[in-house]
């Protein structure tokens, strides 16, 4: 029975794949047990998944615990200064080794039978080694289950598939755009502190899509912001800008442009100068024209950079948020949300940027609040029986010509209000789900 169900799901996924090419995506994908299970098996176990920012674990011994799929992973800075990721499970009888979300430890000792590991995962201590195991246990063979890691500009990713291509290949040029978030100032970005962490009855994919450049929702979902005079763009100019995506890889970014918005506006002048000096001329040309940059690294890591003032009408600062959508069931997720600040900015600027983040996009953020209200309702509807065969339209920009003069990489189209990035995102998702990655 199971295999016939699986086969019909595979057939259906081939249909979904074809639909994406034609500008359709099924509602049920946003709340479905079978699809959730398949995502665990075929997507999160094979893609490069975000684990941590290096600045969260700056010193030897620092660690955080995070997830890839449903696997709890210890991400630690070893005594040699490199980063090691291991499954948070003792190899003896499977107890959870580390029960806190962050801390500093050179070793982890299991609270069940006392097996002890270096934070790099090597087994170094076994009680009653001689009396119990009589010399038959080889420590080398029983280290923690290791996770392959690689990093880009402070972002640490893990991959459970030993045969997957390198992270560099996986990102495939999207780094050009990520630099705007990750290389703020002259010395790059760091987290302001530990992330907000909350649960939501929302499917992770809704967030991933929204942050892949949904400029379309802003004037309505966040209408109060326009109402109170928060935005440097108005409803009439809001559609201006670009949608850039890396074809075949799923990554996408929306670049909102406002006429008359000053280049690098919202950054302190000295910081903006250092950024311009460290970016390539092409990056400077692109970023100078961007008010809002909102992008998703496939599958579930997103960024937003936005100028924002605490009180409407004031000049404001640029804040950057980085968020991870951790699926914990069909239509259910945990949100991790950080604020990234420029390392070499003054403490005053960092705090100001963080307060802007808190008021706008933290858990109590005035923009965040409305997004999750909508997304929870989308998820709820997607689980209803009537929508099993209902598709949503993804046809914006189907005929858009590529903007050949744009200096950034990927497939770039205008305007900002566009579905092109989403078709690319769902097409990559479908590639993984049918097992063709």
């Amino acid at each position, binding site marked *: 029975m199971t295999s016939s169900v699986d086969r019909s799901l595979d057939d259906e996924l081939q249909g979904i794949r074809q639909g994406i090419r034609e500008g359709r995506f099924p509602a049920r994908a946003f709340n479905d047990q079978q699809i959730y299970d398949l995502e665990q098996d075929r997507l999160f176990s094979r893609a490069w998944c975000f684990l941590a920012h290096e600045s969260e674990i700056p010193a030897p011994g620092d660690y955080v615990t995070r997830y890839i799929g449903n696997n709890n992973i210890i991400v630690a800075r070893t005594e040699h200064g490199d980063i090691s990721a291991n499954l948070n499970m003792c190899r003896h009888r499977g107890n959870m080794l580390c*029960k*806190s*979300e*962050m*801390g500093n430890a050179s070793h982890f000792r299991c609270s069940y039978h006392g097996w002890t590991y270096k934070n790099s995962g090597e087994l170094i201590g076994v009680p009653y080694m001689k009396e119990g195991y009589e010399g038959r246990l080889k420590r080398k063979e029983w280290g923690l289950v290791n996770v392959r890691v690689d990093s880009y500009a402070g972002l640490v990713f893990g991959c459970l598939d030993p045969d997957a291509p390198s992270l560099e290949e996986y990102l495939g040029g999207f780094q050009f755009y990520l630099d705007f978030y990750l290389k703020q100032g002259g010395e790059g970005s760091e987290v*302001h*502190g*530990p*992330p*907000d*962490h*909350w*649960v*939501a*009855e*929302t499917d992770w994919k809704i967030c991933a899509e929204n942050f892949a450049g949904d400029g379309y929702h802003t004037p309505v*979902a*966040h*209408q*109060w912001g326009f*109402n*109170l005079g928060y935005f440097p763009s108005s409803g009439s100019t809001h559609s201006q800008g670009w949608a850039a995506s890396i074809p075949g890889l799923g990554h996408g970014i929306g670049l909102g442009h406002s006429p008359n918005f000053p280049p690098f506006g919202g950054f302190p002048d000295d910081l903006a100068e250092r950024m311009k000096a460290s970016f390539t001329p092409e990056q400077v040309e692109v970023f100078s024209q961007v008010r809002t940059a909102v992008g998703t690294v496939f599958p579930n890591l997103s960024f937003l950079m936005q100028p924002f003032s*605490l*009180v*409407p009408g004031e000049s404001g600062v640029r804040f950057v948020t980085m968020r991870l959508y951790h699926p914990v069931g069909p239509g259910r997720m*945990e949100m991790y949300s950080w604020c990234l600040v420029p390392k070499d900015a003054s403490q005053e600027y960092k705090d100001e940027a*963080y*307060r802007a983040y*808190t*008021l706008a996009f*933290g*858990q*109590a953020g*005035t923009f*965040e*609040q*409305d997004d*999750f*209200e*909508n*997304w*929870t309702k989308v998820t709820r509807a997607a689980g209803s029986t009537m929508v099993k065969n209902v598709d949503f339209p993804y046809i914006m920009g189907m005929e858009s010509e590529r903007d050949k003069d744009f200096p950034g990489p990927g497939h770039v189209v205008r305007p900002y209000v566009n579905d092109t990035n989403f078709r690319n995102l769902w097409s990559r998702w479908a590639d993984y789900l049918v097992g063709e990655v």
Partner: protein
Amino acid sequence: MATTTQVDLETRMSLQDFLYREALALDERRFRDWLEYLADDIRYEVPVRVTREALADWELTPTSRIFDDTKATLEVRVQRLETDFAWAEQPPSRTRHFVTNVVVDPGDVENEYLVQSNCFIYRSRGDEPTPSFYSLFRKDTVRRTSTAPGWEIARRWAAFDQSLINAHNMSIFI
């Protein structure tokens, strides 16, 4: 904190009554009235909690905040709720703030008191039969004023007892 009370009964009763009326303003969605209970120089803070070992230096992060507001930003939040487009509160959350275990101590300056309390919030949304519950510990600084209601909150500091917060958004006040 002192092990026994150093504050007279009348003051304690008055502060307790003040907190109850403040909670009532929130639960009745009289947000303009609620702002009147807050000092112009209020700092309104809700730190992020992280699950850590028992002996860790801190569990409430020194740097991360769920709310980090001044009177001006709280006014923006209220102004937002007064528009037709605050979708997070359309239809509005039905909240009930249960304020208990009120402990009053003298503050650092004259006419200010450190008022600690437990706050349990029941939140019901739409037709959802299952409400959300949030348990918090509050440390307020409350200042005596010459005008009604006789007190104002100079600082609200409130910490959730959950590290992973059971709410898709935090569109209510603590």
